[in-house]
């Protein structure tokens, strides 16, 4: 499951919530981060996990996929002769080529995701996972990221990379086993962008979009009649009563305009839309993600 969306919409929180839910259902699940930011492990107040599969909770693991480490691991699996491997890693020219080849970092990152999803993993002590969740890079780069295998397959027309890239492209676009979720916010532009993202994912990348999560939806705390009453109060009163009435009106207004965005989103995307509530919590930690995981359905 690849979790996509623009920056700042709560992709990591949703990815972790999806992970918690799957883990609570008994699925062995791993949440992969690809940006070296370790937001997921930070949510668990865990020290940085790096390029290691670390168990956060029962059935739930986390890894931060580093392209250099992935490359190294890939080469280790490809080359059986040890002397050759050592020579290769020490070689400046190899490191240069690896860094200079456009898209290679993205490719080996997706390669690692593929590897984690295999049931007969070649990596030493590799666990079998029932579900691999990817906290994808923000859109803008996100579609490009998922397209890397296909682009690569067309650049390198022969050789192992060509066939590997084809395998990865099939893996990404395998609708039966691989899906994407889009995380959106209930605002004008993010809704437009999510609709555009869905089109790109389906038409250009060819992946399945299973669900759109509308994150941060304000609860409808007040009815229209109550809002009118509060508007009068806000005009007549001073001090805390007035501030509280204004806060309530502001909540009411936002909740309403967000409902309008929700209907726009439903009209504009093909995938089913699921809403996630705004949590009035100063810091979104693992408990917030757990709260959301109960509402994922």
């Amino acid at each position, binding site marked *: 499951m690849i979790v996509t969306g*623009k*920056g*700042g*919409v709560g992709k990591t929180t949703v990815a972790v919530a999806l992970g918690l839910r799957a883990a609570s259902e008994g699925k062995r699940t791993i949440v992969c981060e690809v*940006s*070296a*930011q370790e*937001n997921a492990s930070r949510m668990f107040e865990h020290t940085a996990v790096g390029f290691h599969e670390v168990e956060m909770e029962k059935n739930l693991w986390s890894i931060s996929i580093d392209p250099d480490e992935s490359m190294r691991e890939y080469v280790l699996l490809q080359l059986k002769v040890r002397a*050759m491997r050592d*020579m*290769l890693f020490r*070689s*400046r*020219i*190899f490191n*240069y*080529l*690896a860094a*200079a*080849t*456009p*898209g290679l*970092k993205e490719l080996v990152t997706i390669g690692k995701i593929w590897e984690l999803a295999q049931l007969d993993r070649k990596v030493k002590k590799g666990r079998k996972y029932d579900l691999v969740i990817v906290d994808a890079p*923000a859109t*803008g*780069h996100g579609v490009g990221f998922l397209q890397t295998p296909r*682009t690569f397959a067309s*650049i*390198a*027309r*022969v*050789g*192992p*990379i060509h066939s590997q890239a084809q395998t990865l492209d099939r893996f990404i676009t395998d609708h039966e086993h691989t899906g994407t979720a889009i995380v959106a916010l209930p*605002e004008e*532009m993010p809704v*437009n*962008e999510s609709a555009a993202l869905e089109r790109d994912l389906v038409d250009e990348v060819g992946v399945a979009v299973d669900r759109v999560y509308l994150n941060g939806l304000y609860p409808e*705390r*007040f009815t229209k009649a109550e809002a009118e*009453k*509060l508007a009068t*109060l806000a005009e007549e009163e001073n*001090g*805390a*009563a007035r*501030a*509280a*009435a*204004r*806060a*309530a*009106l*502001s*909540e009411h*207004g*936002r909740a309403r305009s967000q409902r309008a965005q929700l209907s726009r989103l439903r009209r504009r995307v093909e995938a089913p839309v699921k809403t996630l509530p705004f949590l*009035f*919590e100063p*810091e979104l930690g693992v408990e917030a993600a757990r709260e959301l995981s109960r509402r994922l359905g």
Partner: protein
Amino acid sequence: MPTLGEVLEDKQICICAGSGGVGKTTTSAAIATGVAAQGLKVCVLTIDPAKRLADSLGLKELGNEAKRVDPALFEKQGVEMKGELWAMMLDPKQTFDELIARQAPDEESRERVLGNRIYQQISGALAGSQEYMAMEKLFELHTEGDFDLLVLDTPPTRNALDFLDAPKRLTQFIEGKSLRVFMKPTGLAAKVTGRGVSVALSVFKRIVGFDLLADLAEFFNAFSGMVDGFQARAKRVNKLLADPSTCFLVVCGPQGEPIDEAVYFHRKLVEAKLPFGGVIVNKVHYPAEQLRAEVEDLPETLAEKLGDEDLADRVAANFADYQALAERDARNIKHLASELRTKGVIRVPYLDEDVHDLAGLAQINRYLFATGEERVAMAAGLA
């Protein structure tokens, strides 16, 4: 504490930087609008493919050419537009192609580069090329000198820092110094430098496939005549970024993560000796601090006034939620200010309506260009 108007006085370039999702595009558009309204000719550049800027400025679409925003649109919103506002959306690929066309010594080398598959990849997709092209276009517009101020909305990288490193990464790649020596088909270098290199190359070939390597060799050969031109240009771009007439504004949100990123980004700006102009925090919940004493018996007060205990409880609970968010924001901003050793944090409140058009921009503008006291006073009227 200087206002944003004072910070931008005498500036020719303003670069809005920050991580994704913090309202950079909106802020850039609002700043450009504000300065233009005061009588200058301003152009705002975005690289965001999501057409957000075009939407918010009421333009159907934006292209690689600057377009003027219809002054009548501002009038409708009650904004007096004394100057001119222009906008453009960078097409990194096209900008790169134009750059190649300018730098190529002759037609043949130009066609060789443009037709090369590696080039086609990096010009569109290589991490860093978007950022590099944004700076390139900025440089071009600045050199042409048609505008009083250029406002750049930086690309939506997850890590704001990518933006600063990108040009270096890309020029290093294009220079390909160490690589070109080895790639010459009949080069002696491979033999001279010994077995290690040739084995490494052959292994690499085996992994990536020969085609790719041949394309790379072709790419570097085609580029060889342009490397000096590129380097010279990159140097001038860097000089422009460090010039006192340029200013970097860090844009962030009030939550912990964006604040941490802003602190980090500011440190990198200082390390790179780039001119930091200030920090803008978007979507801030302003606290009603002065009311703390009254809040304790708020449910009772409200119940009495509303004649509805249930509603009163909900209003009070909602208010407490808002206050908690406001306190968090205040705490995070205090931390930000002390890390940046600045008092000049510009706080834009979380408005009741989300900002996506000129009316919204005008509203944000009032906050951006106000003094600190004015902002607090305006926000007190909000919530």
